[in-house]
């Protein structure tokens, strides 16, 4: 049995595409969710949780994009 499925280079680019794509999606979708949540009643604990969750989601997205850049440029 082969030890690898595809070449190392192809695999690295596959991972970068998936990580970068998902991270960019997270930044986009959580920015939208944050905008919606901020328009709600901020005294409601559920809305506050959504705001906090969206901020964390945006940070996670940028961390993913940063990791891809670090891997290819750093």
């Amino acid at each position, binding site marked *: 049995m082969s*030890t*690898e*499925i*595809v070449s190392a280079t192809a*695999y*690295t680019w596959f*991972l970068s595409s998936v*990580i970068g794509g*998902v991270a960019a999606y*997270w930044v986009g979708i*959580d920015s939208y969710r944050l905008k919606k949540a901020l328009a709600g009643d901020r005294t409601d*604990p*559920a809305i506050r*949780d*959504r705001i*906090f*969750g*969206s*901020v*964390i*989601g945006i*940070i*996670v997205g940028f*961390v*993913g994009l*940063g*990791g891809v850049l*670090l*891997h290819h440029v750093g």
Partner: protein
Amino acid sequence: MAASNINPANAITASRFLLLPPFVWAVDNGYQQYATLFLMICGVLDLFDGMAARVFKCQTPFGEMFDAIADALCYGFAMVVVTAYGWVPWPPVAIIVTLGAVNMGLRAIYAKRAGRTTNYQSHAMERLVAYAAYLGAFGTNNYEPTYFFWVFAALMTVVMLHDTKRMAFDPIPGAPATASRHAMEAAS
């Protein structure tokens, strides 16, 4: 009629555990790509169990809890395995696993305070669980593991501080009065 706990969604959730032995086999043999593949299948099944619960209308409180436990066990186990093989730095993994164990304990306290089987909903933790699904792949492929694991440990610390207050102290929506009273008596 209440949905049974033996249902297609929970079967898919349980099937995720079957991927752990092949994952260990792949890591043990140094097959990085296969190890990642097994983790990716685990992640895809995580998407499908929620979908199956909606399609077959078999959403149960146990199913929600089981899904959260499966997430913690599968991703936590993958992290521990890649750490044991020296593929990722151990200090952030120790922090992550410890916080994960504390989180599960607090969820149990939350369910006890609520007086019913319930899964604590945290949007921030949901984002981190999705991130955790990637950590295994970062570890199995030497894809900036130091950066990704340390950032995750820092983010998880922040989210845990936030969620601990909500799970252990804040009022629970819809909690029966007796459960709240018992919690207050236990705390005093």
